[in-house]
């Protein structure tokens, strides 16, 4: 055979090889121009690597969504820098590698999810100038919203095909699909177009497109229904408490869009299962095959259907994987003891195929060229080298028994024993558990607890999320473990048999060579565990090290500002108690009791008001100071400082303020308490922002002279202060105890929760914030009621 000389001859002039006796793959592809979509994905990246490494002078045109950075930058950051290229980089040296990429890769901005592919004229010309177009872009997540799946998976290839037809180009179009277009069926699923086979679902794909778009519009409309919005607002309030209007609004909108998303995911799942598909992904892929067949015109199309793609078997290195894929969360969930059971048929075949085999098969198909007698090729293992579900579970169990994951307390987690119950039963169990946890959490949320007890809430929430996740896995992936279809690979093997030994060496895609025990135990699980960033050995200092690291960060001299809330952050008291003390200080004993009883009786309504809106509460409550003499309040507050404030203070909190000052940070106290009450605390802080009452002829009027800094206004106050002082909030620390302080905590780079109430404890845990438990000094004088010490007579 004549060797193509790409340097001397135009690419266009090279003859495509249609004959059955296959040339050496590399030679067949050498100097060709290939357009590939989906190269930032798992399979796409592997394919680019293989082509660059094995095919001389191949020209790759990569269609990449521009994002914020543009296609070229994304290609550089997300593809070329990936460790899959380490081998090639090592073999060539960095400079030569960069040169190779520079010469052989061209990026174009484009998006298969929008009409016209988002291409400019140059892009359209470039794509239509290619010899081969491999369409590998897909929304692979199994829980994509219906319309996303439709736009990308169904319309993506249709748009490409349309473009090529419009431009009058006739490259070999290779569409990557999935074996699961066969639906949840039993028995053999052969390598044939859907239209010709028993798996064809007679549907109008255009109607499905319209329906999904309509669905999006109605769901969006429904989500804006007053009743729905009310519901979202209530849920936001429940989650955040009195966090202020902006925070609540943001949360409400977040809940609304999440609801729309969930509705669309559910719409996809139910539509897919109503037609016998495991999920929206398989469903839209199946429609896509039909749609491409319908719209391709004269275009030569080959469909390649891989099954479940997992980490590399050997090329370029064993165990390479990109991102967290289908089986990984389940495997990690298993190792962490999270998934105590999973549905599936023990003897059922789990059709897994390593990604390097798929990439090699794609190269072979591309090199062979279009073959009208073999329009579909399946890359799967089940029919010729079945891997049973129980085999995977046994191997995984053994592996995690030998290489356990460690929990927070440095205890190895024993892997659970799965009993393979039906999917329905597992789902029911999990749902029951979720209901129980929900109820306990609601109950705890109503109790006035904080600090370490509130951590129980956070634990419950964590557990609920685990259950939620487990439920998600079971609902999403359960169908795959229960799938009993056998995907035929006769065409694939024919292709394999036609290769010469050299090609078999460098483009291996024979599923029969996979040694499952070796693959799972030595390649895949170690990779998954490494990717999952789980604790594979005890850290020695259980749990504390992270907290210590965070503390060191918070106290680093690099920080600028430390803002503190007062109540329950620095002292375990509140405006009501302080009022009780001041009001009773000069009263005779019997009147004291009467006054305190009155305040106590009002406590529930005050608490409710406080929970609704802190500003309203303070405005309402401070009316009680009407007529109080200014001088006397100042004097009594000084006595109260020693008699009440300091006895209720958290020494560790005071120490922390001082540590911040020692580290050179500016310290600010932001509180809704009154100025005369916090006055004795002034030497502790550089700056104090507090509430002030208006005065009239030496007495207080009971009206606020300025809006007390609460919820969102605290964040504003802090922002203004930082701006005025030229300090950076992202380099600042804030300490607070309640969910209503959320805006304050979110405003800074280093939020610290102190003795958090349940809602905040949950949020802090989720966001990985530092949680401090500050206690009153053991030995503090205890006061049952907020009454001042009896005056000596």
């Amino acid at each position, binding site marked *: 055979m004549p060797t193509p000389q790409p340097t001397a001859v135009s690419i266009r002039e090279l003859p495509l090889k249609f004959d059955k006796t296959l040339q050496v793959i590399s030679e067949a592809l050498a100097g060709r121009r290939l357009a590939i979509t989906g190269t930032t994905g798992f399979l796409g990246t592997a394919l680019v690597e293989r082509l660059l490494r094995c095919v001389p002078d191949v020209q790759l045109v990569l269609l990449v969504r521009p994002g914020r950075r543009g296609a070229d930058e994304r290609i550089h950051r997300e593809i070329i820098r990936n460790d899959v290229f380490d081998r090639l980089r090592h073999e060539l040296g960095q400079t030569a590698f960069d040169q190779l990429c520079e010469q052989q890769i061209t990026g174009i901005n484009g998006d298969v999810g929008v009409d016209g592919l988002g291409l400019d004229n140059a892009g359209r010309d470039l794509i239509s100038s290619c010899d081969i177009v491999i369409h590998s872009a897909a929304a692979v997540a199994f829980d994509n919203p219906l319309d996303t799946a439709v736009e990308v998976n169904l319309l993506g290839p249709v748009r490409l095909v349309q473009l090529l037809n419009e431009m009058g180009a006739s490259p070999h179009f290779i569409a990557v699909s999935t074996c699961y277009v066969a639906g949840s069926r039993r028995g053999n699923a052969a390598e044939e177009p859907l239209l010709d086979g028993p798996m064809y679902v007679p549907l109008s794909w255009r109607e499905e497109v319209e329906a999904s778009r309509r669905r999006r519009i109605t769901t969006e409309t429904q989500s804006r229904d007053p009743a729905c919005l009310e519901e979202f607002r209530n849920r936001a309030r429940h989650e955040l408490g009195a966090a202020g209007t902006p925070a609540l609004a943001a949360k409400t909108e977040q809940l609304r869009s999440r609801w729309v998303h969930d509705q669309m995911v559910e719409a996809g799942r139910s539509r897919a299962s109503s037609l016998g598909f495991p999920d929206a992904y398989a469903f839209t892929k199946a429609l896509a095959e039909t749609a491409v067949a319908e719209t391709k015109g004269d275009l030569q199309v080959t469909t390649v259907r891989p099954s479940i793609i997992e980490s590399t078997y050997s090329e370029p290195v064993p165990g390479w994987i990109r991102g967290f894929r289908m089986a990984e969360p389940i495997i990690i969930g298993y190792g962490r003891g999270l998934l105590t059971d999973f549905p599936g048929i023990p003897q059922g075949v789990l059709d897994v195929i390593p990604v390097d085999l798929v990439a090699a098969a794609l190269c072979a198909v591309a090199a062979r060229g279009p073959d009208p007698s073999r329009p579909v090729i399946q890359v799967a293992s089940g029919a010729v080298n079945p891997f049973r579900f129980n085999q995977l579970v046994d191997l995984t169990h053994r592996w995690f028994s030998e290489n356990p994951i460690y929990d927070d307390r440095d205890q190895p987690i024993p892997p659970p024993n799965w009993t393979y119950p039906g999917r329905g039963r597992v789902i029911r169990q999990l749902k029951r558990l979720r209901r129980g946890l929900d109820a306990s959490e609601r109950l705890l949320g109503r109790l006035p607890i904080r600090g370490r007890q509130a951590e129980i809430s956070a634990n419950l929430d964590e557990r609920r999320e685990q259950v939620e996740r487990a439920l998600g896995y079971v609902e999403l992936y359960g169908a795959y473990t229960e799938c009993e279809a056998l995907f035929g690979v006769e065409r694939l093997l024919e292709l394999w048999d036609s290769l010469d030994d050299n090609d078999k060496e460098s483009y291996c895609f024979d599923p029969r060579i996979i040694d499952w025990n070796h693959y799972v135990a030595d390649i895949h699980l170690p990779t998954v565990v490494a990717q999952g960033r789980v604790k594979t050995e005890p850290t020695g200092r259980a749990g504390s090290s992270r907290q210590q690291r965070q503390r060191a960060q918070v106290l680093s001299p690099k920080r600028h500002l430390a803002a503190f809330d007062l109540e329950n952050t620095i002292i375990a008291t509140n405006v009501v108690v302080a009022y009780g003390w001041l009001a009773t200080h000069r009263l005779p004993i019997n009147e004291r009791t009467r006054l305190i009883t009155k305040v106590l009786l009002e406590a529930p309504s005050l608490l409710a008001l406080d929970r609704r809106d802190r500003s309203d509460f303070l405005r309402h409550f401070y009316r009680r100071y009407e007529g109080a003499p200014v001088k006397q309040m100042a004097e009594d507050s000084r006595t109260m400082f020693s008699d009440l404030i300091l006895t209720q203070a958290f020494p560790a909190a005071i*120490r922390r303020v001082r540590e911040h000052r020692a580290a050179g940070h500016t310290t600010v106290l932001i509180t809704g308490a009154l100025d005369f009450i916090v006055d004795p605390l002034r030497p502790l802080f550089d700056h104090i922002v507090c509430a002030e009452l208006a005065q009239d002829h030496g007495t207080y009027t009971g009206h606020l002279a300025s809006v007390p800094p609460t919820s969102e206004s605290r964040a504003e106050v802090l922002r203004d202060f930082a701006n005025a002082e030229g300090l950076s909030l992202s380099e600042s620390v804030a300490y607070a105890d309640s969910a209503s302080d959320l805006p304050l905590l979110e405003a800074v780079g280093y939020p610290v929760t102190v003795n958090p109430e349940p809602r905040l404890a949950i949020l802090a845990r989720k966001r990985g914030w530092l949680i401090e438990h500050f206690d009153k000094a053991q*030995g503090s004088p205890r006061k049952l009621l907020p009454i001042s010490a009896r005056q000596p007579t």
Partner: protein
Amino acid sequence: MKDKVRPTPRPGMVLAVDRSTPPILFHHGEGFRTERLPAGRSRIIYPAEPLKGLEDPEGAIHHALLNPINQDPLPAQLRPGMKLTIAFDDISLPLPQMRRPDIRQLVIEQVLEMAAAAGVEDVHLIAALALHRRMTEAELRHAVGDRVYDAFAPSGCLYNHDAEDPDNMVILGTTPHDEKVQFNRRAAESDLVVYVNINLVSMDGGHKSTATGLSGYQGLRHHHNVSTMQQSKSFMDQQRSELHASNWRMGKVLHDAGVKIFQIETTVNNNTFGVDGPLAMLQKREWEWSARDRAAFMGMQAGLKLSTTQMNRKIFQSWRAPYELTSVQAGEIEAVHKITTENVYAQHLVRVEGQTDILTMGLPYICPYNVNSVMNPILVMCLGLGYFFNLYRGRPLVREGGAVIMSHPTRWEFHPVHHPSYIDFFEEVLADTTDPAEIEARYERRFAEDEWYIHLYRKSYAYHGVHPFYMWYWGAHALAHLGTVIIVGGDAKAVQRMGFRPASTLQDALEIASDTVGSAPTITHIHNPPILMADVN
């Protein structure tokens, strides 16, 4: 009500423990333990019984004021238009607080009467508390009486010394040892300072009353430091105390600077718990306990067990000792103090033959720095290794390299108002090192000059930021001398934080001590309080 005191009090004694010795009372914070000591190698030092109080305290005071030593009678020193300052000992004396009327009240009332008679109008009364916490109104009323309080406090003429008030502290000079003498400005500028002292132990009084009591950190740091404390063997023995030498040098500077001091010193007897009454058995020898004593003790133990720590603390802190005045002398400081010390020794000194391998002590609920407060772990250390260990003349009771076993609950508890810097000292400094010299070098300055602690000392009721350091230095001599320190019945973590070893029973403690002192050590138990001072041959 006056307690009945034996007409001929018996002196202190040393009891050799044999098999017939009953279990011995150990004070244990707000409670008690009874322990059997190993027969044949243990001894117990008992304090002397309370000396007889003066029949006519008011008369004796009057006599002392009119017949001072080496000075003119007080009335002769008073004249119209003069500035008179009366300084008095603070809440740390006596321990526990004594029943009303307090000796200070008796003395001050007479001084004020004489001043009024002489037409003195500019009179200030100052609680000479140095770096201790301010006294509350109730505490001041207890010390000086309501009449004096109401006459002087509202006009701002009765107040607590403020060592951090920059306007009201002066440096009066420097001793030949380069020690700065810092003093209260009002006292320095007065024509006469009358100092009213209660001399509970031999460390108190003399020049220390004024040179320490009315000074501040700039002055105190010259003798309240590790080196001075390690050279004071003991600080209860003025002849061999570097602490006192330094105060005496400062006293000379005060004198040379023209500060005129009329020193009134008083001594009280050992009648801490009363001769009859609910706590009487605490100052009796165990084998002399009557059936009533035994029943009362068992009842008390049961009651304390049922009650909470807070409640027990309240009960004990409300105890007022029926102390009686045993002597009062006035005039020139050094001469007065010689007589005072003799009177203190007369009550406290007990002759003891030779040293011991292990010294055991039961620490009570109170020390000078937790009146109406919490005895935190640092104060436990200070009471045991500072005060009790140093209650010796001649040689320490325990041999060098020996062991001290203290009994105290040593809870991880602090009074947040009175002892804020103690909390940080315990959490931050002791977590780093327990070596007094290292602590002094690395941390003292920062705590002493800390603005927040100064604010709390001046405006609230906090001991000064540097005070926990002084508490630790107070034990420096003992720490250098001892091989091991064990605390029985204490919070293990708190005990370990201080570098000591926790034991749950005395038997365990003796077992632990055997690592240091061998398997058959001699043991001496110091049966204190009531207070005794060992005169060791």
